[in-house]
């Protein structure tokens, strides 16, 4: 698996898209810091971008890589390697190279602007951590889609759809149900609903660190009580891990029966 990982990273690190992605984050970081020089504010703006963009890029990139390297994958499949190792290697390759673009792209400008001397370092680290998680989660989802869909166009369609669902539609349904069941206590429901969507979970984790919980009133207190404790933080990262592990398990299941 490490061999496959090595070569897919090798391949991806030379791909134009990795650079475009890297340069995008680099430019974004510099522009944000240049515009207001306030690291805290830059972190908030970055959050808005990261929780929407990393899932989108992750899914698109994952699906694209799968379909583009289909024939090469077939070549690998004829080599004496276990199937799951090939795909895990590729999966890790994409996720890591995307994460590398994110970490370096944002890390460099923030370091140059004195991140280590700033109090924003924890928020920034959390942001990067959550962004990386989102990369791993959405590439895994993309691989699930691609493995289940032979048709490339359909695959792309589903990928966009799953992103759209988790980034937008889910929140819409969430809001509508909150408004409909106005009379009932909704904090537990909100908590659970947040857990079921990695984008929402990431957003809440960062928002609470930026201490917006005060705005949330009672629900905020419930959230803060939950996420603020070590147990809550542990649990939410566990959920994020599950969001990586469950799709990966499905990939493994799928691979057992998949014909190439």
């Amino acid at each position, binding site marked *: 698996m490490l061999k496959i990982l090595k070569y897919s990273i090798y391949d991806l690190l030379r791909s134009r898209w990795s650079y475009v992605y890297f340069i995008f984050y680099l430019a974004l970081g510099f522009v944000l810091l240049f515009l207001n020089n306030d690291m805290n504010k830059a972190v908030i703006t970055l959050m808005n971008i990261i929780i929407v963009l990393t899932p989108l890029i992750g899914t698109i990139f994952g699906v694209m890589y799968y379909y583009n390297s289909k*024939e090469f994958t077939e070549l690998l499949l004829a080599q004496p390697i276990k199937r799951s190792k090939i795909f895990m290697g590729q999966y890790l390759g994409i996720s890591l190279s995307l994460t590398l673009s994110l970490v370096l792209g944002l890390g460099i400008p923030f370091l140059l602007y004195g991140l280590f001397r700033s109090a924003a370092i924890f928020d920034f680290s959390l942001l990067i951590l959550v962004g990386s998680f989102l990369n791993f989660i959405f590439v895994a989802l993309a691989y699930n889609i691609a493995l289940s869909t032979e048709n490339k166009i359909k695959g792309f369609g589903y990928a966009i759809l799953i992103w759209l669902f988790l980034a937008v539609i889910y929140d819409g349904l969430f809001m509508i149900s909150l408004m409909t069941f106005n009379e009932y206590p909704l904090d537990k429901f909100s908590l659970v609903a947040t857990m079921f969507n990695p984008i929402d979970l990431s957003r809440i984790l960062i928002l609470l660190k930026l201490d917006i919980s005060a705005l949330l009133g009672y629900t905020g207190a419930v959230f803060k009580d939950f996420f603020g404790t070590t147990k809550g933080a542990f649990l939410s990262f566990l959920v994020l891990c599950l969001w990586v592990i469950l799709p990966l398990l499905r990939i493994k299941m799928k691979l057992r029966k998949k014909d190439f």
Partner: protein
Amino acid sequence: MIEIKNLHKKFGKLIVLDGLDLTINPEGSEGGIFAILGPNGSGKTTLIKCLLGMVIPNKGEISIDGTSVLKKWEYRNNLNYLPQIANFPPNLTVIELLKMVKNLRPKASNEQELIDLFSLYPFLKKKLGNLSGGTKQKVNLVLTFMFDSELIILDEPTTGLDPIALIHLKELIQQEKAKGKTILITTHIMSFVDEMADEIVFLLDGKIYFKGSVAQLKEQTNQSNLEHAIANLMTKQHA
């Protein structure tokens, strides 16, 4: 020795292999060149992919040298495969790809000879994405023939090759055969079959419809030309 028993494969509702039985090189016999032929959609590629473990059969058994290979992967170390479409990671160079595949199969290889043979030196440092189809196919051939394995599977090996390369390919196949290897080839080029194949395996509707030497086939169909003989096989079926 390859032994395939009662192999079934469906893709959705489409039955591709329907209780296929095939034995290649029964115990004791020397290697040889086997051409797997059949009309489009007859299950050639599926059969090969089953053998490679890329397609998982619904039912049946495949064994090589007496051991089952289904759901295993180690046996592929003794198997070389030339895929139909030579599509490689575009950002790797030829030499990196060779290194990588060597890395994946820790066994002796003679890529240097093959690179000489196909005059690939000028391309070694080029990215695979920038190579022409023919050159890619040559790289593909190098990857296939550089290892010393008992079983060699070639899926449309002649695609995109110039005449010189084609001659080299034929030489290579003969050399391997001389070493006692078993070589499975699918192709649509009948002259190639006529020239190379020791035996023909003809697939139709997911079953082996004919298995025997070229001479036997010609005899059975009363045709002196292989192309016609094959055509005859197909029309007979349809008649």
